[in-house]
């Protein structure tokens, strides 16, 4: 949108808003520094007097969150600094900064509230969980408001531009018009009056997403507390980052992350080029009938359900199974159970994945191949390019957009090795190479019923995954001008 790029003359009064934000942020930082004094004024407790702002930042506070940096404070710092920076350098985005600044202040006060009451137990209810809950709710609410505000601002800017353009057009044409461009609120009202049946149609799906996708996101809270069925999501004892620390101090962190990355890596190295090669080979086949047969047969394994597939695999891998017989053909005296030996798990996993997905994954490349302009081949032939050179200079460049976007998707899911197949295939003997983060989450959560710990591990994984997707998408946008959004 070119309109968005043209800078708009800053509206009158943006200066005081800018100053207001800077003052707000400064006040917050001062609050942080003089927290002990404030505490001393409000609550005359010895403990509060001995703590400095730095102690809070380091998490060096008595009570349950001792020794860990409070997530609220981390969030507060990030949001506050963002608000400050935006206010300083991009004053046109003032609403965003205001929200950030408010978030910062509220967080700091919530935190103070939390720590003070937690330490003294002065609050009637279960103080620490209450403070945390309220703080979290406000933080979540403000983040949502923040998001809406940013989108709102963008729309409003386009509206203002539209208004200005219209006025300019009228002025140029020398038209005296009484037509007034409606305000955003008027547009929304009118839109709803006109389109409510459409929104009604979408409503059930929105409800679905709120309950089954955003509901569980709220449940992530339990990774910061010690979830008990009695206390529920918000009422359980708050433990800060304890589960994360536990995970990273255990030997499982290294093992599961390593296994996840290795399985992804080999899957990528083996499973990504293979369908491309198959598609290229299929494309070179002259007999259409034979090609059809090959396609039908190679797509077929994809339709065998995962459970059946793993059932077949466990049978084949056993010491008397098919693979053992094949090993014997190659002179192996006593074949081992391939699924009972940690050395072979990755091979079996990646190999079976290849078997099942090879043909299916080639479809997309085949369709991309069909989209390459045939004239390019003819031109290449006239220029004296042989088959190989044609593939190199015509086919591969033609496939590049498809390849890049699929590669990005794969890189984005590097940490996302699914649990379904591994749960069906692994056993105690192969945990050493087979146990990935998601299966560990499954075992800890569903099998051991250690809900909070499992959620914490999962949260860590999801955040990494999310960042990978964003990173991959940015990379793709920069390198190939293809991006997912």
């Amino acid at each position, binding site marked *: 949108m070119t309109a968005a790029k043209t800078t708009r003359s800053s509206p009158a009064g943006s200066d005081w808003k800018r100053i207001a934000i800077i003052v707000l942020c400064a006040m917050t930082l001062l609050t942080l520094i003089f927290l002990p004094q404030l505490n001393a004024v409000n609550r005359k407790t010895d403990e509060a007097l001995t703590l400095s702002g730095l102690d809070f930042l380091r998490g060096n506070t008595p009570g349950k969150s001792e020794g860990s940096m409070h997530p609220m404070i981390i969030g507060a710092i990030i949001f506050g600094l963002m608000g400050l920076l935006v206010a300083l350098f991009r004053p046109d985005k003032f609403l965003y900064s205001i929200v950030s600044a408010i978030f910062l202040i509220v967080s700091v006060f919530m935190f103070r509230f939390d720590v003070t009451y937690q330490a003294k137990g002065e609050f009637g209810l279960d103080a620490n969980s209450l403070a945390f809950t309220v703080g979290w709710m406000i933080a979540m609410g403000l983040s949502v408001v923040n998001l*809406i505000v940013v989108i709102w601002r963008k729309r409003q800017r386009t509206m203002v531009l539209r208004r200005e353009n219209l006025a300019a057009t009228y002025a140029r044409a020398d038209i005296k018009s009484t037509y007034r461009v409606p305000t955003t609120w008027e*547009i*929304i009202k009118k839109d709803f009056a006109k*389109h409510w*049946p*459409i*929104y009604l*149609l*979408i409503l059930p*799906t*929105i409800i*679905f*997403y709120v*309950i*089954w*996708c955003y509901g*569980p996101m*709220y*449940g*992530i809270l*339990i990774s910061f507390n010690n979830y008990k069925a009695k206390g529920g999501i918000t009422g359980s004892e708050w433990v800060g980052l304890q589960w994360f620390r536990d995970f990273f101090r255990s030997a499982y962190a290294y093992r599961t992350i390593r296994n996840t990355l290795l399985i992804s890596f080999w899957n990528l190295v083996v499973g990504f080029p293979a369908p491309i090669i*198959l598609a290229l*080979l*299929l494309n*070179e086949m002259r007999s259409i009938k034979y090609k059809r*047969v090959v396609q*039908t*047969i*190679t*797509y077929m*394994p994809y*339709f*065998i*359900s995962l*459970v*059946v597939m*793993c*059932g*077949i695999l*466990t*049978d084949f891998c056993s010491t*008397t199974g*098919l693979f053992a*017989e094949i090993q014997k*053909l190659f002179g192996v005296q006593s074949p081992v159970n391939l699924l009972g030996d940690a050395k072979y798990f990755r091979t079996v996993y990646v190999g079976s994945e290849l078997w099942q997905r090879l*043909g*299916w994954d080639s479809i997309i490349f085949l*369709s991309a191949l069909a*989209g390459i302009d045939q004239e390019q*081949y003819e031109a290449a032939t006239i220029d004296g390019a*042989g*088959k190989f050179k044609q593939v190199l200079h015509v086919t591969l460049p033609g496939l590049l*957009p498809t390849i890049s976007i699929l590669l990005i998707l794969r890189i984005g899911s590097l940490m996302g090795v699914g*649990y*379904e197949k591994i749960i069906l295939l692994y056993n105690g003997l192969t945990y050493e190479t087979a146990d990935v983060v998601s299966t560990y989450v499954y075992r800890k959560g569903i099998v051991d019923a250690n809900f909070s710990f499992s959620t914490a591990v*999962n*949260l860590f994984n*999801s955040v990494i*995954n999310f960042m990978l997707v964003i990173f991959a998408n940015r990379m793709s946008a920069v390198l190939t001008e*293809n991006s997912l959004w």
Partner: protein
Amino acid sequence: MNTVVRKKKHRPKSRKLMTRGEKAFEIFNYVFMAILCVICLYPLWYVLVCSVSDPIELYAQRGIMAWPLGTWSVRGYRLVMENPNIPIGFRNTLIYMVIGTLVNMFLTTTAAYGLSRKNCYWNGFIMKFIAFTMYFQGGLIPFYLQVKSFNLLDTYSGIILPVAVNTWNLVVMRTSFAAIPDSLEESARLDGANDWTILWRIFFPLAQATVAVISLFYAVTWWNNWFNPSIFLSSKSKYPLQLVLREILLKNDTSAMTQVGSVGQSQQEQFRMLVKYCTIIVATVPILVVYPFLQRYFVKGVMIGSIKG
């Protein structure tokens, strides 16, 4: 964006004489494809052959088989049929598949229609709201707790409702609705049709191909579904087929055998193996029988999915 343009393959008809290298490549290519086909087919053939072999001979000596061992027998299949869990599994899978796909399709089509309408103020925002869930989820345990908090554990609705919409399918559906010309909608509106009528009388039939593909994808997902049922269900009478299969194939559940008195204790091990093969065949044949007929829809689905929504 990488919109995939589907074009009829147009090869130059003039067939020049192939060079020697090209000929060698061609032969290699054909042989390679043949080997690939064998690799893709043989495991299934092997299972099929084993399932009709003589159980005792099969147990004694397997090896790489091209043909059933000993006299053909269907004893394994008879044992599979006598196992009550398998018909129950089939029935439950059918229930999940039919009701689940209907729920899926209803929500997906209505939402896709709504979101494909231009000039709706909130649609962009709703789309972002929905797309975000593709990249960030709450995770296994919060999801489980959510199901639990709605008292949906061990119920049919607990299996169906939490996965009532697939975001990817919704996006694909929306794209295909958005491609339908506006003029159709406008003329229908002039004739007094409301959104509900436009959706079901005009858009739904016009996007038939996509609707078929998306329902197929949903149906296949239901057919393969085993993980959610395995954590949400506790009573075996609600198990879908895949979960029953898991018990038999991977957990070595021999209850099928003990319920059947016709097999002696000593033969159990041999029959267990046979029953496994027969179960695999019984559970795979339905989908492999319909697959060749539906193949082109699946392929189409992959292609429309590759066009960015």
